[in-house]
């Protein structure tokens, strides 16, 4: 065995690792929060009575879901900039992530909505609930609760995809790691360290999503069973 592990060479850079991890988490939280709203709105629009609205949202969702994330990032960062619309790299990265996660969320939430039985809506109508109440309490919240695990894994995938933004000079965890390995030539150790950090962030996010689920879905809190 010839390889000598030397993690000590990375010690002076612990603050850079930490800063990179923080940037990754920040990008993820902002992108997921906005992306979720856009996704839900798009899911509602896809069930709209207006064909043109269904068509437009369909184009957006299909385009995003059928092109690679890196192409979307390059399009936003370089393409829009060539047309005179320059934005800082953090903003451009988050913007691309919002567009990406919004489309996937829309399809996941729509799947949940399709699963709501029509008789439930009829029952709500018979009880005299308003259209808004029906959408919020009978369709939206139960369907989000039903697809919550799928949403969680989509958001965690998004967190891992932030690594791609290092290509456009974002200094998130992978970008930082690429710098550090080029100073220290300890590439194996560097990537082991960030793999562990990514794993920790994943568990952190999972825990966060679990806590949110407990807070917003009373059934889970009270009965301890998912829908």
């Amino acid at each position: 065995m010839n390889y000598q592990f030397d993690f000590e060479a990375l010690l002076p850079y612990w603050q850079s690792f930490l800063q990179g991890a923080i940037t990754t988490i920040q990008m993820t939280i902002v992108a997921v929060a906005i992306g979720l709203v856009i996704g839900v709105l798009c899911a509602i629009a896809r069930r709209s009575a207006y064909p043109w609205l269904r068509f437009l949202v369909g184009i957006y969702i299909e385009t995003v879901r059928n092109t690679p994330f890196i192409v979307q990032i390059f399009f936003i960062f370089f393409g829009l900039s060539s047309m005179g619309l320059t934005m800082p790299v953090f903003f451009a990265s988050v913007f691309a992530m919002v567009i990406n996660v919004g489309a996937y969320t829309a399809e996941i939430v729509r799947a949940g909505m399709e699963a709501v039985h029509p008789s439930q809506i009829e029952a709500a109508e018979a009880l005299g609930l308003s259209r808004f109440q029906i959408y919020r309490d009978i369709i939206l919240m139960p369907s989000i609760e039903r697809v919550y695990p799928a949403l969680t894994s989509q958001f965690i995938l998004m967190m891992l995809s932030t690594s791609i933004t290092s290509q456009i000079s974002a200094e998130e965890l992978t970008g930082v790691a690429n710098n550090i390995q080029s100073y220290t030539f300890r590439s194996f150790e560097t990537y082991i360290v960030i793999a562990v950090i990514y794993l920790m962030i994943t568990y952190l996010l999972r825990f966060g999503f679990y806590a949110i689920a407990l807070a917003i879905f009373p059934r889970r809190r009270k009965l301890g069973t998912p829908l």
Partner: protein
Amino acid sequence: MKTIMKVAVAATAALMIVATAAQADILENIKKSGKVRIAVAMGSPEYSYVDGDLKATGSDVETARLIAKDLGVKLELIEITNAARVPTVQTGKADLLVSALGITDERKKAIDYSVPYATLSLIVAAPKTVEIKNYADLAGKRIGVTRATTNDMDITQNAPGAQIVRFEDDATLITAAVSGQVDIISSQSAVLGGLNKKRTSNPLELKFTQKETNLGIALPKGEKPLQDWLNNWVKTNFANGTLRAVFKEFHNRDLPDDLTSR
């Protein structure tokens, strides 16, 4: 968790076996297998790029072809990114690397080099209206570089006040400058011509030369027979003019006469 750890340990062990296998005499291996694996980071103008017919060319690529020819084996060109240059050699993923890699003391701790075979001129470029004469003038300004290059290290060291924006390869850096994401760049002199052809408004001009770096062919540490063969090859082909002609064909300038003894 237990299973994850087990998998991780197994994977690590497997990697180590691979690393051990790669430690045999590379020169002998090359001759036995009939092919040499040479890594090149593509996308460096004049050094390594794809031409109009999507064929890899440039002074580094042609140098790699000459090496394979004189070894009497087939060339397997391994295309990598800039940041992967040193690790690729370090881990034996390639036998050699001919990729505009400057010879530095830090890198020498991780890999071995041949004697210099070419040079690279590091420059800072910016639009006419921007006042930059030296490193100190870069303070507070956004400057684009390619990650893990000698430019990156030089600017990081000498212009601590600058805001450095790191891109993955020269091609992405050039795209960033063309699309207006960055206006000031530190790169090699060869990129300017092609860059300004695409960036028609507000072109970049040479502000100052950081330094002239000697480039070496990189190989894994401790491969004495291969290193001797390479040194001998570079010296011979420099003396008979082959290497100088290849360089001049792409860069339009001559290499210094004392290069191989530097």
